[in-house]
């Protein structure tokens, strides 16, 4: 089975546990914390993924790290995954967990690129526009990239809403040179 399928199964199982035990918020917060931990501390990821380190050792590491920081259920889940020899997928499982959770709650994390920082008013406007476009509750992850010259580029799942000046100039260049026969 593909990694994607396996991660989805584990993630939905964790989500089901969270719902059953009514600890949804707690577990969701735990997952984000663990994920952040894994992403920021490279050594942790390497250690957990390493095939040389024995399973007991990995369990001890997890225990020592997260015992006081996350809820019992989350800890139990991580240990379970390690016992099933799926620790390499742990990161994917948590990512899928967040994706599935957001999908269920109708939340969406949108990456927006702008050329310069926006005023609060503009941000609010942008947010409401994007919410209208996507029909979801939007949280904006703003990035500043001077290369786009002006306008914005919003990425929602696989769709890009591109209103940047750079893109317009690129289109213009293409049109003028007529280099690409495929785009009429």
């Amino acid at each position, binding site marked *: 089975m593909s990694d994607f399928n396996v991660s989805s199964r584990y993630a939905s199982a964790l989500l089901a546990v969270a719902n059953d035990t009514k600890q949804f918020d707690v577990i969701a917060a735990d997952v984000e914390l663990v994920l952040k931990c894994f992403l920021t501390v490279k050594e942790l990821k390497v250690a957990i993924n390493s095939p040389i380190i024995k399973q007991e050792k990995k369990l001890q590491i997890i225990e020592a790290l997260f015992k006081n920081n996350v809820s019992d259920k989350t800890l139990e889940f991580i240990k379970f995954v390690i016992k099933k020899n799926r620790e390499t997928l742990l990161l994917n499982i948590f990512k899928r967990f967040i994706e599935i959770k957001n999908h269920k709650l109708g939340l969406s994390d949108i990456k927006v690129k702008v050329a310069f920082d926006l005023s609060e008013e503009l941000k609010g406007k942008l947010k409401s526009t994007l919410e209208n476009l996507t029909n979801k509750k939007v949280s904006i992850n703003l990035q500043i990239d001077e290369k786009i010259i002006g306008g914005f580029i919003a990425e929602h799942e696989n769709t890009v809403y591109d209103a940047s000046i750079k893109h*317009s100039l690129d*289109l213009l260049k293409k049109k*003028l040179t007529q280099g690409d026969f495929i785009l009429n």
Partner: protein
Amino acid sequence: MAEVRPDEVTEILRKQLSGFENEIDIYEVGTVLQVGDGIARVYGLNKAMSTELVEFPNGVIGMVLNLEEDSVGCVLFGESSLVKEGDQVKRTGRVASFPVGPKMLGRVVTPLGEPLDGKGPIDFEKYMPIERKALGVIDRSPVKEPLQTGITAIDAMIPIGRGQRELIIGDRQTGKTAVAIDAIINQKYTHSEEAKKYGIQPVYCVYVAVGQKNSTIAQVVAKLEEHGAMEFTTVVSAPASVPAPLQYIAPYAGATIGEYFRDKGEHALCVYDDLSKQAVAYRELSLLLRRPPGREAYPGDVFYLHSRLLERASKLSPELGGGSLTALPIIETQQGDVSAYIPTNVISITDGQIYLESNLFNAGMRPAINIGISVSRVGGNAQIKAMKKVAGTLKIDLAQFRELEAFAKFGSDLDKSTQKTLSKGERLLEFLKQGQYEPVPVEKQVVSVFVGTNDYFASIPVKDVKRFEKEFLEHVDLKYPEIFEEIRAKKVLSDELIEKMKSAVTEFITKFKISE
């Protein structure tokens, strides 16, 4: 490129930049996970369609072939070294398609429709998807018009009809391409004023070259140009040097132009040279896409690969305009082995095959057609009546000859009737020899087949048969042009006409000088 005038530029600039504020370009993207060997795995592109074209950076175009749960598998039509992991891939929303239109004629193009002949951009009419479902039963009608190849052996014994699929199969260096090229050159007549007068509709040709050498393709184009056949022909070129995905789609692209003419109620002939190389290209990309291999490592759908292509050849019903698309697929066998996987598949799909043999070729029998095992399953209905009448016994005569051929070395020890069969067979085989790029019009074929089957060659030595035929045709052309005229116009042999032919040939035999 055409000149760009400054005022035009300003105009376009204004157009592009005006309304800039409210113009948001919405497109869908994915990320390249893995790339190599002309294949890219792309994460995202959730809504991508099968065979949709996608755009990679640096102008590389790809086509979606595998749709998986979390990723899509794309084949690249360009250099895979220009694509890196993590690159953004854009959907185009357009399935792979090919430009069609009358202006495509006379051009050499890639399987994506880009011109290769340096004659500038093509003013095509529209794009048509390269993968189209073949027509159903209701939309078709039986094959009934002949497609003259100009090769006497084929037109007399293995006739091809418009809308038929006739396989040309044989080892390397047996003249497969030559047969197809001759067939294309012979369509020149259908574009003439004279043909129009006799109600013969023009046939537009497509020559699809898959996995061949660039030099071979250049030679074919030069030959077509030399014989004035290029003006009604499109050459789709996917030489061995281009990536496998382009070789894979080339025949479909060729079929698309053919279908354009067919759907307009016109007639088209499509030569796929050759499908074994296309199958190899498809095997390559299937294995790279990790599809499970089957017999000879071809994927499971290699039969469908060819059947869906050749099913597109068809004769339309009168309600749909009565157009036709004839397919002449070519298959190269290894050491004459027709029981290999691809040859058996294609033999079973097509309506007959022309089998070329290397030992016949080496024995000087050109075209090297093995008449015994070559068949045409539907073309018989399409033959003109005159030809049907004279060619009726030709195949049987040759079959009888083949049966007795082994005894030929006993020479004079044989009885009279055997000797007669042998000498007739030898002369018939001799007269079926024909030079390359020398297509013979059907009325001349009828007259010479008449001479052959009625045993007028009996008194002529084998080495003089070809000369006799040539001189006799010239003689008829000079003294009895009405014979050709009548066959051309009425397409039947009346009793008077037969008598006239008989007297012409008996008269000529007495005049003919046998060489020393």
